[in-house]
């Protein structure tokens, strides 16, 4: 596809990069609202409101005017998620979003993924080698009760909706849900799970 056609496709995709890939010379607000500022005709006030809304969603409202260098690794990932979802894409791609983070911070990122999937109806493709985070996203769901959002264990039907694809040497070596992955007898899968 030509670059022009790819740009049209990218309008429907949001991507979270491994290290966040925030623009160093812009503030958090300018990063999150970048696509809205640069590529849309949305009024500046509306852009600001949307930026504040998504930063509130990822619980970083107080960092709105900071520079990326002033944020921790986990905060940068959450700002990257906010930037990816600011223009409401139907699909989000997460490229090793929790790699290099401590377990508590990684869980925070996983919860943001669940909130986007279940509350904003965003289809998510999560690339990770952290099985712990993959199983967490597959076996939990976000539920909104008024102004409160809770992360709870998902029922079996919900768990079935999360599909695992495992790659080895460029080929698909496994496809299935979380339960099937745990029950797999493939030596490579068993090695990975252990």
């Amino acid at each position, binding site marked *: 596809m030509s*670059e022009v056609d*790819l*740009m049209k496709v*990218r*309008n429907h*995709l*949001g*991507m979270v*990069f*491994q*290290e966040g*890939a*925030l*623009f*160093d010379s812009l503030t958090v607000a300018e990063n999150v609202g*970048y*696509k809205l500022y*640069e*590529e849309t005709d949305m009024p500046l006030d509306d852009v600001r409101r949307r930026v504040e809304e998504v930063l509130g969603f990822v619980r970083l409202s107080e960092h709105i005017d900071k520079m990326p260098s002033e944020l921790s690794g986990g905060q940068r990932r959450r700002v990257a998620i906010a*930037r*990816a979802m600011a223009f409401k894409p139907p699909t989000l791609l997460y490229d090793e979003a929790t790699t290099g983070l401590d377990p508590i911070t990684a869980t925070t990122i996983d919860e943001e993924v669940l909130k986007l999937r279940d509350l904003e109806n965003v289809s998510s493709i999560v690339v990770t080698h952290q099985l712990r985070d993959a199983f967490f996203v597959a076996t939990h769901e976000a539920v909104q009760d008024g102004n409160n959002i809770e992360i709870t264990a998902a029922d079996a039907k919900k768990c079935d909706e999360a599909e695992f694809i495992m790659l080895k040497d460029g080929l698909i070596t496994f496809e299935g849900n979380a339960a099937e992955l745990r029950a797999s007898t493939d030596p490579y899968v068993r090695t990975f799970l252990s």
Partner: protein
Amino acid sequence: MVVTDQINALRALGTDPVRKLVVPRVLAGFFMTPVLTVISDTVGILGGWLIAVYQLRVASSLYWTSITEALYLQDAWMGIIKPFFLGYVIVTIGCHVGLRTSGGTQGVGRSTTSAVVAASVAVIAVDFFITRLLVYAVVLMATSSIRDAPALERRSAPERPAVVFDKVSLAVRRQGRAEGSELYVAARSHEDHPRRQRLGKSTILKLILGSGGRTAAKSGCTDRASTTCPKST
């Protein structure tokens, strides 16, 4: 930006990195390099003045006079036109190498070195071709103007005369028969004219008469110059 995936992030957000990053830099390099060249030329001339005056003990007025005498207008024009091309080349090479960086922070260092080396060589090469082109263009314009212009007027008289004639009188004396006339000239040359030493009163007479050979035999060099005109025939 490449090694931290910011370029990919730009693409993912629907922004063309060339439009957003490269074009402003190329325009800035294209338009600002001549300005920087003028500034650096000025600083260079001032630096030369400092060294000439304080280290080489050259008179300040001599330095500035030499600059104006040595500098040709076409050199100044070439010095203004070339930076447009060189600025474009330097920035374009930097952007091209930068967008193809790979290998993390080591790759950034390698790309920086490559860009500087490539730009330096390109400046030398482009300078050669641009100079040839501009010289050819100047020669072409000069020959066409000479071919088309009327015969050049000869300017022999300086703006400021070397000699001021204080008193000129023409006396016609007749002593029974016409023996010609006498011309008395009292001349004073300008004290600070650069050719003062070579312009004596006998020379003045030659200038008045418009020739040198014939009057030289008849002119004298005294405080009060005098000569006799050839006898009329």
